[in-house]
Every structure is written in structure tokens, then in C-alpha cells.
């Protein structure tokens, strides 16, 4: 619900409650006022009758005086104290054909020793009419209120909330990778100024943290590579100092370990970079060409491992992604299919406009295939691989909106990459 709608709803609910109470109050006030007026009018009439009686005028039992058909004057044969009684009475209304509440004023007067009963009743306005009038005027008021509220609402959301919506828009367009915080814009409203200042502080903190994290990832990689380079160099110098083959095997395994460490730190840095969205999309990559060249460059390893490769590659499949990521994704997948294969095994590569599939023969994985996309998950825990390849592939796929699936069936590993949003 929009703030504006909410504001109007609350406002109108309160208005309705106020109007209902106001209606009841006005109804009773108006009714009281009318009855008071009527009462005075009746009393005046009674006073006049009394005056006429005192003057010696005699009335018939029921006589119309001043056009008042309801006036009743009776001579009583008993003594009654002079008093005035005011009450209600229900009287049949001829036109409306219903009982109508009327005001009734009854007076007892003693004139020259005789007691008289003087009474009259009537209504100027029916109570229904009062109700109608009250409701009608209240509806008018309510209508004006609604129009006013909507008008104020538009004014508020259109003009007053402009800085708020502007801030919102800026937050929506905020990109951490651009490493620019959102400076607080000056408004004349304290709340908005507070909000903008808060946004400024928050974004500049986010930018600093992001920069630190990124620098840390890069520096960590850098700081690791230099000592590794030193160790590697020393070992190379050591191999030239006349080692026995036995000693050399130690050196060689150390070399391999260093190589692995270096690859590990490189892969982690790459993974961090992908997670930080440092590779912005924006280029058309010809996947067909990439795949063909990739297979070509591995020909030697394929034949050395006695593998057989089947290819069905559609021409000119274009994908919108970062070329480096495309290369890494394909290389990781294809190298995996060579490495985790069996002797005299097979590899099937299929590329269409919508899908890249890689199937290869290989030993059954010891963990569920879906888990192999997690970091440091390896099908064979003793293997020399670092266990980040598929994790990197998954991150690249996620970032480019590709769907990735991995199944194992009848000795075949099948990886499908659904290339959504492919332009061909």
C-alpha cells in the first residue's frame, strides 16, 4: 500500500468517526433547539389564552385559535394548581400516514376561581427531516474532506516527497562496484536530511568495506605469490646443485605443492573477483569459436589419454558475457572432462543456440553430483585437483543467468549449461 493511500485511509476513517459523532451531536442540538423554540411558542400561546380568559372571553371546548387546531381549552370542575407540563405525545400524521413524535405543552390555570386546562401539541419539523438534513450536510462535508485529502495527498506525494523519492532512486541505482558513495543532498526537511545523511554514511561505509575486501583479496593473492616465487626459485637453484635422484623426488614434490598453492590462491582470488561482480558483461562472445579452439588446443592431451571426442557444434553461437569468464568456464569444464575420464574414454561436446552440453565417461563420483559445485568438493578426495573449478563455473553461470545441471548416468557425466538470453 502506498504511503499516500494509507494516509488518506487513516484520514478518512478518522473523518468518518468524527462526522458520525458530529452528526449525532448536531441532530440532538438541532432537535433541542427546535423543541425549545416550539415550547416557547406554545407557552406564549397559552399565556395569550390565559390573558383572553382573564379578560372574560370564553372558548368552546375545542376552538381554533391563531390557526392552531391542536389547542384544547377545558374548564375543569375541580381545583388544579397552576402549573405547566411539557411532554411528548405520538400523533397520527395524515399525510405521512405514520405516528409522529410531537411536543405537547399542558398548562393548568386558575382564573377567577375556576381551573382551566389548556393544552397544545405539534411539530414544525419531523425528526426524519432533521436526520436527513444532518446526514445530507455531513455528506457534503465528507465529500469536501475527501477531495481535500486527495488534493493534499497529491501535493504531499508529488512535491513534499520529491526528495524522498529522489533518494530512493539514487539508492536503487547505487552500484558497489563503482566505488562511489551517495553524498547527502540538502533538503529543507529535517527528516529527509537525516535520511540522506544516513544514506551517505551507510554507502560510504559499504564502499570502504568493499574496497578493503577487494584489496584484501588482491593483496592476499599478491602476498602469497611472492613467497611462492621465492620458494620455487630456490628449489630450481637447488636442482642444479647436483642432487641425487632420490633428493630430487623430494624437490619435485615440493615444486608440485608450490604450484598447487599458487593455483589455489589464484583461483580463490578469481572466485572473489567473480563474486564481487568485477567482470562486467558487455561483449558478444562467439562460443562456437571458443569451443572449437579449446578442443583444438587440447588435441595432444586428448590423444595421449586415448580419448575420443564427438563434436556437434552449431555455427556462430553468440553469448553476451565477459570474454575472460567465457574462456574460464569452458576451459574448466573441458579440462574436467579430460582429467576425470577413463582410458579409451569418450567426450561428447554439443553446442546449440540454447545449450552447451558436455558428456564424458568417467568413474562414478563418491559424492552427489550437485555437491561438486561447492568449494573444495572433489569426486576423488585424493586427486591433485584443488576443487574450485566447478565452483568457479557455477559462479560464472549464476552471474550470467545460465542454468547449470550435472548428472551421472550409466558411467557418463553430463553437464548442461542452458544459455538463456542467447543472441544468435
Amino acid at each position: 500500500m502506498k504511503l499516500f493511500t494509507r494516509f488518506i485511509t487513516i484520514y478518512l476513517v478518522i473523518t468518518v468517526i468524527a462526522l458520525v459523532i458530529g452528526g449525532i451531536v448536531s441532530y440532538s442540538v438541532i432537535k433541542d433547539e427546535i423543541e425549545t423554540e416550539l415550547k416557547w411558542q406554545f407557552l406564549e400561546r397559552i399565556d395569550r389564552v390565559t390573558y383572553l380568559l382573564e379578560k372574560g372571553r370564553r372558548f368552546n371546548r375545542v376552538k381554533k385559535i391563531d390557526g392552531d387546531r391542536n389547542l384544547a381549552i377545558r374548564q375543569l370542575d375541580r381545583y388544579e394548581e397552576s402549573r405547566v407540563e411539557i411532554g411528548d405525545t405520538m400523533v397520527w400524521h395524515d399525510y405521512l400516514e405514520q405516528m409522529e413524535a410531537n411536543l405537547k405543552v399542558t398548562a393548568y390555570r386558575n382564573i377567577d376561581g375556576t381551573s382551566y386546562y389548556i393544552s397544545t401539541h405539534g411539530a414544525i419539523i419531523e425528526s426524519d427531516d432533521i436526520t436527513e438534513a444532518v446526514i445530507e450536510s455531513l455528506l457534503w462535508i465528507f465529500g469536501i474532506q475527501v477531495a481535500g485529502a486527495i488534493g493534499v495527498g497529491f501535493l504531499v506525494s508529488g512535491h513534499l516527497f520529491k526528495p524522498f523519492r529522489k533518494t530512493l532512486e539514487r539508492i536503487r541505482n547505487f552500484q558497489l562496484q563503482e566505488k562511489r558513495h551517495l553524498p547527502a543532498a540538502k533538503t529543507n526537511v529535517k527528516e529527509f536530511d537525516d535520511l540522506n545523511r544516513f544514506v551517505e554514511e551507510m554507502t560510504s561505509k559499504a564502499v570502504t568495506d568493499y574496497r578493503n575486501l577487494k584489496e584484501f583479496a588482491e593483496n592476499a593473492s599478491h602476498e602469497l605469490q611472492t613467497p611462492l616465487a621465492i620458494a620455487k626459485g630456490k628449489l630450481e637453484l637447488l636442482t642444479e646443485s647436483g642432487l641425487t635422484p632420490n633428493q630430487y623426488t623430494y624437490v619435485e614434490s615440493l615444486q608440485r605443492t608450490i604450484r598447487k598453492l599458487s593455483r589455489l590462491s589464484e583461483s580463490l582470488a578469481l572466485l572473489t573477483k567473480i563474486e564481487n561482480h568485477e567482470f562486467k558483461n558487455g561483449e558478444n562472445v562467439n562460443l562456437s569459436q571458443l569451443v572449437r579452439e579449446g578442443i583444438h588446443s587440447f588435441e595432444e592431451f586428448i590423444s595421449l589419454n586415448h580419448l575420443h571426442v564427438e563434436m556437434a557444434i552449431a555455427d556462430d553461437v553468440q553469448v553476451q558475457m565477459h570474454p575472460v569468464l567465457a574462456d574460464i568456464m569452458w576451459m574448466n569444464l573441458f579440462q574436467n572432462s579430460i582429467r576425470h575420464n577413463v582410458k579409451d574414454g569418450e567426450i561428447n561436446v554439443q553446442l546449440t543456440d540454447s545449450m552447451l552440453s558436455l558428456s564424458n565417461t568417467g568413474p562414478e563420483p563418491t559424492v552427489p553430483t550437485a555437491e561438486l559445485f561447492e568449494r573444495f568438493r572433489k569426486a576423488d578426495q585424493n586427486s591433485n585437483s584443488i576443487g574450485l573449478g566447478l565452483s568457479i563455473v557455477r559462479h560464472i553461470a549464476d552471474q550470467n543467468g545460465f542454468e547449470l545441471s550435472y548428472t551421472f548416468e550409466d558411467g557418463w557425466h553430463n553437464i548442461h549449461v542452458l544459455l538463456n538470453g542467447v543472441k544468435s
Partner: protein
Amino acid sequence: MAFFRSEPSASIVWAYLILIPFVLIIFPSGIIASGFLQNYWLSYDMKLLLVEDNEDLRQNILTYLEREGYICETSADYDQAFDKIITYTYDVVLIDIMIPKGNGLQLLGELKNEHPETGIIIISAKNSLDDKIKGLELGADDYMTKPFQLPELQARIKAVHRRNRLSGSPVVLVNEIRINTLAMEVLVNDRKIGLTPKEYDLLLYFASNKNHVLSKQTIAEHLWGDYVDHLENLDFVYQHIKNLRKKLISAGSTDYIESVYGIGYKFNVSEKKQ
């Protein structure tokens, strides 16, 4: 013999008599030396500057390269390096990007201004494509990512030097083997032999790292780069070496490629071999 009568002329003659043996001895040996140097000229003449702040790494590179007889100088920070590139001329300069008191890329720019003919290799811990592109755009000839192999570094230095406009020569000579790096052809005793691209690459790598022991892993990484990362079996290196060796020997070359048991191979061109 009026010749001998005058004192000054006599002294000149005596001087000649004394000089003759020297000339006779020094000149031929000079000729011999020049023939000898012809093979080693490229490496012996090369002047290098290494800009790297890490003491150990500097020492590693120095130790490896000094065996080739390079004149190798080092600087540990930007200011030192700047002074040196302004004052002297080098054939090849190795620059680390992250150095104290400045940036390697900045130094690269200064160097290109001052001595555009100098070969430049960036050695960086950052395997970042941006840096690589920036460095090469600024005029670096090559970019190496740490940790690199010392034989690989040496091969790259030589390659950069060969391509160098002023002092480099496109021909690598190892006794009877002549490698023309422009035409990418190999001549043994002036007869061309046909090598596959990988065999050619392998021979050039051996020639760039004469008398060094090269492990199978090192060779594999040079020939196939990062692809070998995931391969546990390096037997294919042996295949290529076997073929290269066969071709060289059948063309009449000495068998320089020695197998070092359990370690790898060595391209041995030391005197005793000949």
C-alpha cells in the same frame, strides 16, 4: 745502416721489436676469441636491470642469470631504479609492478621515454588482465606472473633481446645448430631440418637454458602453459624430446640433450662434450 745511427729512430725500432710479439700473440687469440664469442655473444654482452623489492627473489634471479654471464644490476625501489634507467642504457629491464616509492608501470613509462629501444619484461604477482593489457600497451615486451620458472624467465629475456631493435640478433647459435627465430627454422651444419612447432619451441627453450637441468614439469609448463596444471602424467614431454633428439642426431648434430635420471633433461654444450 743510417737507421741505427740516429737515437730517436732506434728507439722507435726497438719499440716495434718489442711490440711485434705482443701483436702476434694478441691478434690471433683475438680472432680465435671472436669466433668463440660468436656463439656466446648474445648472452655475454647483455646488460640487465632487475627492479624487484624482494631480496630473496632478487637473489634467485641474479644467481640463475649470472651463470649466463649477464651484466646484471638490481634496484630495490622506484627511486634507485629511476636513477639507473636515466643514467645507463640496458638491453633488458625486468620490472615488478608493486615496488616501494612508486609504481612499476610508471617506471615503465619513464623508461620508454628515455630509452625506447630497451626490452622490458614485467614480473608481477598480479595475474590481472587489466594490468597485463596496461603494461603491454605502455610498451612492455612481455608480462610474467609470479611464481614463474627461472628457465622460463631466461628464455623470455632472450626472446625479448632477440627481437630488440638495436643489440639483438634473430639468430641463436649453438655450435653447429643455427636457429633462425625470424623464419622459425633450424639449420644443422647449414642444412635445414624439419621440426614440428613444439619441437622447435623445445629446442629454442633448451638453447636458451644451456647447461641447466630442466625438469619435465618445467618443460611441460613452457610448452603447454597452464594446461598442464591438471595433468599428472607428463610422459608426452618424453615423446617430444625423443623425436627432437632423433632429428638432430640424424642431421649430424652432437647429441646435446642429456637425460638426467629421475630429474629431467639438460642441454649440455660444455667443452668436454665437444
